[in-house]
C-alpha cells in the first residue's frame, strides 16, 4: 500500500478511469444511437421569428447575414450561441426543464436527451444557476421586439430584473447589430422543436392570480 506506484497508478489513474467509465462513458453508451445533428441540419427549417428579423431590420440584417435562408440561419445560430457563451448567459439561465418543482407548468415540456444531441450543444449549456428563468422553452414565448427591447434595457420590460443591459448588441441608433440579431435568433430557436406554449396560457399569473 505504501509503494509509490500504488499511489500514482491505482489511486491516480485507475480510480479516475473507473469514475470516467461509470459517470461519463456509460451515459455515452446509453445514448450512442442518438444522431448528432450538425448546425446545417438544425437550420434546415427557417422559423418565422428569423424571417421577421429580416423584415423588421432589413438594412442591419442584410449587412449581417444577407438573405434569409438556411445558410444564414445556421450562421446566426452559431454566432448567437457564441455570444451566449462569451457573455456567460448560461451562468444565470439554465437550459433544461426538470420533471419536478412544477417546472413543466412554468416552462413547458420536460427536457429529453434527444433535444440536446446537436452541434450547438458542444459543449452543452445546461447551466447550474437560475437567476433568470430557464430558456430551453423560450422560442416564440415572446416576440422579437420583446427580446430586443429586453436586451437593450431589461428593466423597461421587468422593473425588478437584475439582468445587465447589453447595449453593445445595438448600433448608435439603437437598432440591433449583428450580435443583437444573432442572440435574438438563437434565443428564439431554443425549444422551437417542441409544441409552442404561448406566454399567456402557461404564465403563472393566470394560474395563481398573482400579478406584479
Amino acid at each position, binding site marked *: 500500500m505504501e509503494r509509490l506506484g500504488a*499511489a*500514482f497508478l491505482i489511486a491516480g489513474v485507475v480510480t479516475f478511469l473507473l469514475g470516467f467509465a461509470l459517470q461519463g462513458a456509460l*451515459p455515452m453508451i446509453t*445514448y450512442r444511437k442518438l444522431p448528432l445533428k450538425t448546425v446545417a441540419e438544425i437550420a434546415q427549417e427557417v422559423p418565422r421569428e428569423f424571417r421577421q428579423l429580416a423584415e423588421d431590420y432589413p438594412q442591419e440584417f442584410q449587412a449581417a447575414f444577407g438573405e434569409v435562408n438556411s445558410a444564414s440561419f445556421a450562421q446566426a445560430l452559431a454566432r448567437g450561441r457564441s455570444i451566449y457563451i462569451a457573455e*456567460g448567459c448560461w451562468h444565470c439561465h439554465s437550459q433544461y426543464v426538470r420533471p419536478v418543482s*412544477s417546472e413543466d407548468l412554468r416552462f413547458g415540456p420536460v427536457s429529453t436527451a434527444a433535444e440536446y444531441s446537436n452541434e450547438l450543444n458542444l*459543449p452543452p449549456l445546461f447551466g*447550474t444557476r437560475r437567476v433568470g428563468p430557464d430558456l430551453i422553452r423560450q422560442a416564440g414565448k415572446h416576440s422579437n421586439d420583446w427580446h430586443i427591447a429586453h436586451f437593450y434595457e431589461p428593466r423597461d420590460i421587468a422593473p425588478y*430584473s437584475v439582468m445587465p443591459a447589453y447595449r453593445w448588441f445595438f448600433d448608435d441608433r439603437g437598432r440591433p447589430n449583428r450580435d443583437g440579431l444573432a442572440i435574438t435568433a438563437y434565443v428564439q430557436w431554443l425549444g422551437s422543436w417542441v409544441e409552442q406554449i404561448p406566454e399567456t396560457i402557461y404564465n403563472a399569473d393566470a394560474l395563481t392570480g398573482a400579478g*406584479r
Partner: protein
Amino acid sequence: MTPATEPQRQLVNLALVRAHIVASAVAFAVVLLGGLIFALQFMQQYPFPGIPLLSPGRVRMVHTNMAAYGFIVNAFIAGMLWAIPRLTKRPILSDRLGWIIFWAWQAIVALTFLGILGGYAQAIEWGETPMFVDPLVLVGLVLLVGNLAHPIFKTRERGLYVTLWYFLAAFAWTGLVYFMGNYVPQFWVAGAPGAAIAGLFIHDLVGLFVTPVGWGLMYFFVPLLLKKPIWSHALSLIGFWGIAFFYPMQGVHHFLWSPIPMYAQYGAVVATIAIEVVVVTVIVNFFGTLYGRADAMRANLPIRWFYVGMLNYALTCLQCAIQVTLTVQKVIHFTDWVVGHAHLVMFGVFGFWIMGVMVELWPQVTGREWYSTRLLTAHFWLTTIGMTSMFVVLVAGGLVQGYLWGSLAHWGDSVVYSVPFWWVRTLTGLLIIIGAGLFFYNMWATARQPAPAYVPGAAAARA
C-alpha cells in the same frame, strides 16, 4: 543540475515559494474585487454598466477562474515546493525549471483573465479558460509534475508519508481531469452525455486536485505545528483510499433531474453519500490529533485557520450528503443554496487552509517576523464572520428562491424577495475583503521591515 555542481543549493527554494505566495495573494485580490463587483449587479448597483469588457457575466467567470487557477494553484504550488523537499530530503528537480513554471503559470493566469474579459470564455464551468490557454495549462501541469514528483520518486526515505500519497495521486489526476473537462465535451461528446462529463470536470477539479493537495498540506503542517504525530495512521489510509475510490464517480450529481440517464444520477448520489462517510474518518483523525493540544487553537494562528477550515469541511460534507438527495434537489437546485455551498467549500475550507499556510510560511520566506499579530487576528475574525454569515445568507436565500419557484409564484417574486439576501451577501463579502486588505497590508509591512540577523532554520523552530 546535480548537487555536486551546486554545493550551496538550499533544500527549499525560498524565493520561489515567496514568488508563488505573492502571485496567489495578487490573484486573491482580483477574486475579491471581481466577487464584489459582480455582487453589486444583483442590487442594480453595477458600477460599470455598458462596458463590454467589464460585463457582469464576464466578471463572474473571472471571479471563479482566478480563484481556481490564480489563487489556489499558486498557493498549492508554494505549499508543495515547501513540503515535498522537506519530506523527501531532496530538492526539486530544477530551480530554473521552477522559475520557468512560475512565469509560465502567471502568463496562463493573465491570459485567462484577459481572454474571459475579451469574450473568449469557454462554456465549461470552472474551465472557462479560453481554448487557446488549455494546451498551455496542460504543458504547464506536465512540467510542474515533473519538477515536483522527481524528489518523491528519487527519495531514499523508507515508507512514504500520507502527504506524498495525496500529492502523487493529485499529480496523476489533475492533468487527466483538465484534459477530460476542456476537450471531451468541447469537441467529441454533445448534449446530455457531454453534460455528464462537464459535471465530472466541475466535481473532479475540486475533488481530484484541490482536495488531495489541500489534505496533503494538512497532513504535513498540522503534525509539524502541533509537534505530535497524526493520531491514526490506519485512519489516514482509509481516508485516502476512500477519497480516491469514491470521489471520481460523482460528477452527474451536478445535473440531477436532467436528461442524463437516471442510473448515472442514482450512482452519483450513492457515491456522494458514501464519500461523506469516508470523510468523517479524516475529520476524526485530525481532531484526534488536536486532542490534548486544543490550546493551540488560541495560541497558534495557522492551526486556528486549519481547524476552522476543517470544521467548515465537516459542515460542507454534511450539507453535501443532504443536498445531493433527489428530494432536496427538487427545491435547492439552481438556487443560491448551491452558491453558498461552493463558497463554503472553496473558500471556507481550502481558502482558510491557504490563509493558514501563508501565515505560517510568509515569515519563513521573508526572514522576518509578522509585522502585526493583531492585524493577523483581525484578518482571521473578519474572514470567519464574513464567510460564515455569507454561507448562512446564501443557503437561506436559496431556500426562499426554491420554494417560490415550486409554488409557481411570478418569476419576479423570486428576484424581488432575494434582493435583501443579496445585500447581506455583499456586506458579508465586504467583511472578507476588509480582512484580506489588512492581511495584504500586513504582508507588505512585514516584508519591508529591516532584515534581522537571520539564522537559517530558526524560524522553522518556532512553535
